[in-house]
Each structure stands twice: as C-alpha cells, then as structure tokens.
C-alpha cells in the first residue's frame, strides 16, 4: 500500500537525505607513465603487466561510473581531488590557483561560472546542495584540470609517491564545511573513494592514521580500490576502521564492473548487498628501525616508538631506559658499566 504511514515516512526521510562522494584519484605521473610504456612494450615477459590499465582507460572507467552515480539519484553530489606527489588539488569544484577570478572575467560556459560561484561565498553552497550537478560540465572541468596538473609536474619530486594523506585531509575539511553549511533539515551522508597506484610511504603512516580517526568520528567511510600490484596495508586498516570496502580488482580492464557493483552502493543499502570483505587485516606494527613487521616488540613509554629488540636508549626521543625485570631473571644481558669488566653472564635467551 503506497499510502501507509511507514512508506510515507520513508519517502519523506529519503527526500531530505543527500549523498556526497569524494573521489581521490592518485595521479602519480611516474607510475602511470611507466604503465603506458610497459603496455607499448612488445616483449613477452611484460605480458602480465598488460592487464594493468593506463591512465586514459582508467579515467574513462571513472567518468562512466560518475555518470551512473549522478543519474541514480538527483540529490547525489560528488567532488574530485587529485593526489599528486607535491600536493593535493581539487579538480571539482575548482578554483583557479586558489584565487577567485574577478567578477568581470569572462568564462567559457555558464556552467563554469556557476562552479566558481560555489566556492565564492557560503550562501552559494545552498546552490551546490539544491541544484543538480551537470555531468558534461563536470567531465570538462575534470579533464581540463588533470591536464593542467600533469603539465605542471616537477620532475624531482615524482618518485616520492603521491600525497594520499594530504588529499584525504582536504576531503575531510571540505566535508566538514558542507556539514556546517548544509540546508536545515537535510542529512548529509558522506563517503570517500580512493584509487591508489603508488606504494605506501611509511612516513605518511601517522598522517593517514590521524585522518582515519577523524573520519571515524565524523562518520565518513573510506572505500579503497587498489590498482597497484601490491596490497596497501594502510588502506586496509583505513577501510576496516571506518567501515568501508577494500577491493583489489583481479582484472583491471573490467574496472567499471567492479565500480558499478561495489562502490556505487550507498551506506544505507550496504547491509542488503553482498560486498567484498577482508579476511585478515594486518594490524601488526613495523619496527621503527628495521622496518619489518613484528608480532612481539618493545614500546618506548615516552614516545611510543616500536622496536623489535631490546635497547638501552630510544633512538627517536633519546631517553635512556632503566634496569628491567628481565635482567634479573637473566633474559637480557645487563648493561656493561663503563670501565668495569663484563660480568659473567647467566643463561640468556
């Protein structure tokens, strides 16, 4: 019965519900460029590398997915951020070089004028919420911005890997602003979808974890789609903690099928759909010095650095450790006093 109270309530609440998806694209030019050159290689040993897609194919898949996402509900909103090695960059909605163009500047289409108005004042975020996003405008803006991003790349910084933590932090700031400025009575469900091709950088671990905990507090789920050859343990932990989906597609040329069956599903419907789950998540820490994964280790009580062997002073914060219980039981050698003979040792492990 379409007129019963429960259905009417469901329809009413659905009207006030706005979905926001922020897409993080990893635009590391070194890795994408290497793929393209690998694809062009005729040699047979690189045959298996030909299953990895190059950037233009990848962008086709993503834009097709975006069109489907925007068509599925008129209230769906989307934003794009490129995670580049030097810094992250907003592809859509976009400002030119962080400055707003003056009022008299001519723009190519009225769509772009609207986009600039979005970022210009808080009253215009109402338009962002109320008006539908035009896919053509979006596609043209994204492609144009990506071209600009790639042309202004600095050669030295490329091999470092992309700044996924920076892009994620910016996405969270943007979501925070929209939460604050949304029209009264609407609920905003936000999620972030990250595409990654670069390997994990251990220096970014702390930043990514900070961003993850902040996302968890804000109820933002992070989904990750891994297009590199190795798994990313950072994104595995991120997706697990925030309740998102972690997926490493086996056949990348069919990426659109993975996107349309897994990543298009809203948060509210995820309980009804069978989504890929992670069997084991590697929560083990890595030793700060030897960088290998450890099950059992030692943690400095001052700076929380992790070591896999016993030490007498912490290499991160320089603090010296006192005599331990284990020395008395003989498990560890006592620290030799300067200028004295080493004591004859008991059985030590």
């Amino acid at each position: 019965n379409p007129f019963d109270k429960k259905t009417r309530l469901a329809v009413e609440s659905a009207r006030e519900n706005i979905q926001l998806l922020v897409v993080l694209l990893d635009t590391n030019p070194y890795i994408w460029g290497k793929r393209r050159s690998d694809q062009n290689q005729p040699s047979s040993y690189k045959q298996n590398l030909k299953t990895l897609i190059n950037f233009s194919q990848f962008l086709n898949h993503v834009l097709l997915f975006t069109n489907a996402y925007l068509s599925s509900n008129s209230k769906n909103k989307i934003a794009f951020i490129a995670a580049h090695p030097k810094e992250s960059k907003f592809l859509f909605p976009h400002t030119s070089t962080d400055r707003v163009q003056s009022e008299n500047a001519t723009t190519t289409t009225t769509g772009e004028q609207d986009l600039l108005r979005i970022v210009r004042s808080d009253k215009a975020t109402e338009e962002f919420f109320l008006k539908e996003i035009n896919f053509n405008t979006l596609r043209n803006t994204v492609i144009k911005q990506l071209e600009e991003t790639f042309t202004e790349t600095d050669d030295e910084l490329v091999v470092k890997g992309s700044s996924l933590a920076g892009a994620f932090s910016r996405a969270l700031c943007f979501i925070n602003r929209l939460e604050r400025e949304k029209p009264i009575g609407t609920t905003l469900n936000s999620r972030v979808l990250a595409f990654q091709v670069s390997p994990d950088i251990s220096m970014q671990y702390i930043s990514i974890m900070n961003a993850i905990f902040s996302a968890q507090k804000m109820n933002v789920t992070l989904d990750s789609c891994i297009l590199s050859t190795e798994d990313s343990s950072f994104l595995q932990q991120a997706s697990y903690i925030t309740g998102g989906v972690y997926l490493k597609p086996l056949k990348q040329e069919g990426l659109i099928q993975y996107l349309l069956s897994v990543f298009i599903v809203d948060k509210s419907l995820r309980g009804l759909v069978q989504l890929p789950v992670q069997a084991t998540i590697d929560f083990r820490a890595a030793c700060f010095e030897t960088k290998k994964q450890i099950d059992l280790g030692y943690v400095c009580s001052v700076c929380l650095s992790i070591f896999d062997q016993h030490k007498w002073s912490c290499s991160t914060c320089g603090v010296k450790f006192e005599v331990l219980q284990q020395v008395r039981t003989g498990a560890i050698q006592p620290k030799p006093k300067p200028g004295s003979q080493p004591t004859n040792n008991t059985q030590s492990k």
Partner: protein
Amino acid sequence: MDIDAEDDNEIPDHVHGASGDTGYVWEGQFTGAWSMLDDNQEGQIINDLQLKEQVRKRQRLTSMTTVTDSIVRKGIIRFMYLILDLSAGVLQPVAHDLKQSRVSVMHEATSDFVKEFFDQNPLSQMGLIVTRRGLAEKILELTGGQKSMLTELKEIFDPSPRADDEPTPDPFGGDPSIQNSLLIAHSALQSIPQYGSREIVIAYSSLSTCDPGDVMTTIQLMKDSSVRCSVVALDAEMYVCKKLSHDTNGTYGVALHQESFKELLLAHALPPPTTTKQKNMKPALIRMGFPQRRSDNLFSICNCHSEIKAGGYICPRCKCKYCDLPTECTVCNLTLVSSPHLARSYHHLFPVAPFVEIDAPKGVDARTAGQRFDGTMSVGTDVNRIIELCGNMSKDNTLCCFGCLKHIPRENSLRLLCTRCEKVFCVECDGFIHQSLHNCPGCE
C-alpha cells in the same frame, strides 16, 4: 521586569550579568549587547561582528587545547582515579547557578569525560572512587574498559530500581572526605609500573571536607609519591583543594556554569606534561604484542568471556584468543595492542604548529607589526619571510581557504596562515585541523 528593583540579597555574589549588574546567569547574556558595536571616525557603525565572533571562537579553541609548538614530554600511559563527591553538596536545589540539577550535570560531564579519555589515551586505565557520609569507597579498580566505567556511573547516578521491594539506600548525602579518598587512591596507585603517569581527578561540589586526620600530611604524601591531583569544582573555591592541586602540579578549576564544568573536566582528557619533580616516573621499554585479527569464519573459545565466538585476536606469546583490544593477556601478562591504538596517541607527540593571523589586529601600526609573531612560531621558520608574506596577502582580497575552498574576504573575517606550507585557512578549518584532524593538509 525591573531588574534593579529586585531584592538581590539571595543572589550570590559570584553570579553577575555581562554588563556587571546582578541577575541570573541566563539573563546576563542579553544585557549590554550594544556594547560590542564600534563606530569608525565618521560615526558609522562598523560591521565587524562576524570577525569578532571568529576571534572569540579561535581564542576559546586555542586556550582549550593549549596549542603550543614546543615539544614537551607528556605522560602518555596514564593511570587515573576519578573521585566523585556525592555528598550533600550534590543535592543542592536547582537554584542560582545551574539550569539542571547538579546530579545530572555531573553524570553527563563524567560520562563524556570517560569516553573522551579512552578515546584520546587508549593505553591508559581509569578507576572510580566515591566519597559520601564521611567515608570513601572504591567502586571500580583500574581498568582499561570504557563500558564498565560507564555502567558504574549510570548505576550511581541513575540507578535502576531493584526487583525486590527493599528501599534503595540513598546514594547521596553526608559530608565528603578528601583525605580518605586520597588515601584509598594512593594505596591503589602504588602497584602500577613505574613508567606510568599517576593521576587523580576530583569532581568536587561542597564547601568543606570532613577528615579523620590532618589533610596536609596526606597532601605531602601525594607530593612525595608524585601523584598529580587536580580538582574541578562545582561550588566555590576552597583552600584545601587549591593547596592540593598546587603542590602536586595539578590544576584547579571552578566552574561558572555547566558548560564550563564540562570544559574543565574534558581538559583533563589530554595528556599532561611531565615535570622533573615526578622523579618516580622512569621511562621504560614495555613489552607489547601486536596480534593479528582472525577471520570471522573461524570459531573458538575466547579467554575473556569463556564463550565460543568468531573472529578475535590471538596473543602472540601464549596463543589465547581475546575479543577486543587493547587488553592484557590473563595467561602470560602481555599487553596486547594494535597499531591504530598507538597511532591514536601520536598526535599528542607531534602536534600541528599553530597558524598565524595574516591581518594585524586593529590599532597595530606597521612598525610593531612584526612583533606580534614573536613566540608564536617554531624554531627554524624564516620569520622575515612570513612577515613579508603576510604583508602581501593582507592586501589581497581573493584568497580561498586551502582546506574547504571557501572564499575569505579581507574585511570581516579572520585569515590564518600555516608557517610551514604557507597556505591560507579559514577559522573553521583551523579549529577542525587543530582539534580533530591533527594534520595540516598543505604540509602533507
């Protein structure tokens, strides 16, 4: 209603309105609102209310979170006892200072405090002591479990009615005893390892204490054992509490109204800096295990509930299963944590540098403009470059916030600059970054 004609003998002295006349606290915020407007030289009213609002918000944030740039050693692994005063002071009628009763204010604030404490310090443990009728009682030993603390608090403040018809004993009443509660906490804190930071937070709502002996000797005992005692008071200031917190390097806060009580209490969720006087706190290497999570398809008996459950974490040393982390293995006494738990505390050790304001406040002339940066920037930043950058940017009207893409015009809003990556942020992103995110998006 004519406020001046009211009989103000019953209204306590500490309640004053915004413009100084006596009245109820909630009336105070509506008087004197015109005093916030200024006029410029031509006599026109300057519309900078938005700017003032932002400056006030930022000042509140910076004072609450103590955004400093120097790296200070903090007590990350904390063992804290929360002492609640459930004496007759808590039963004060809904009178002059609070909109809700003191009981509900205490309940709400302590529940929020417990949640925030375990969120910010996942490796720490907390216990509960209450004092009433001249005695002190230890309700809960030191535990890392948030749920047990919350259920005990609910049991005290909002007890469920008993099944049998016996009348429930009155949970509040009598006199509080600071000395007894401190002695109980002290004996309990003696057994913890030396690398931990020992703390006591007292939520006090009376004006006196009823002690069996000399409370000053107990205060001296606390000082010698390097236990950091802090007090958050709902009633007026007391000399005993002041001496206790001062001698043990804690803090003493007196709440003006319920929001300030909650703010003062939540400030203790952040790790305190350790002082050289705490000579008993020696740094040590703690043996910890990092268990892997088992797949949810495998069922086995867990060690914490003795029930068959799916998933769980396996202790690397003795191979017992536990449902939740962080926990201590009951068989081999190994602390089990996962790397996100340690990562939750890293932001205390590597905080984000505070942002500087681009535009100088009104009334500051160009000569002294550079001096406002003294002491606000970390060692190693090029101060002259920052001054030059601020000078150029303050004339620019087209700046957008790097975090949220909002355009921040020159007049009527606060613009903030990160000294390391030289990006501009608005005041909301600044609050979000320093309180919640702990990452500067531009520096990554």
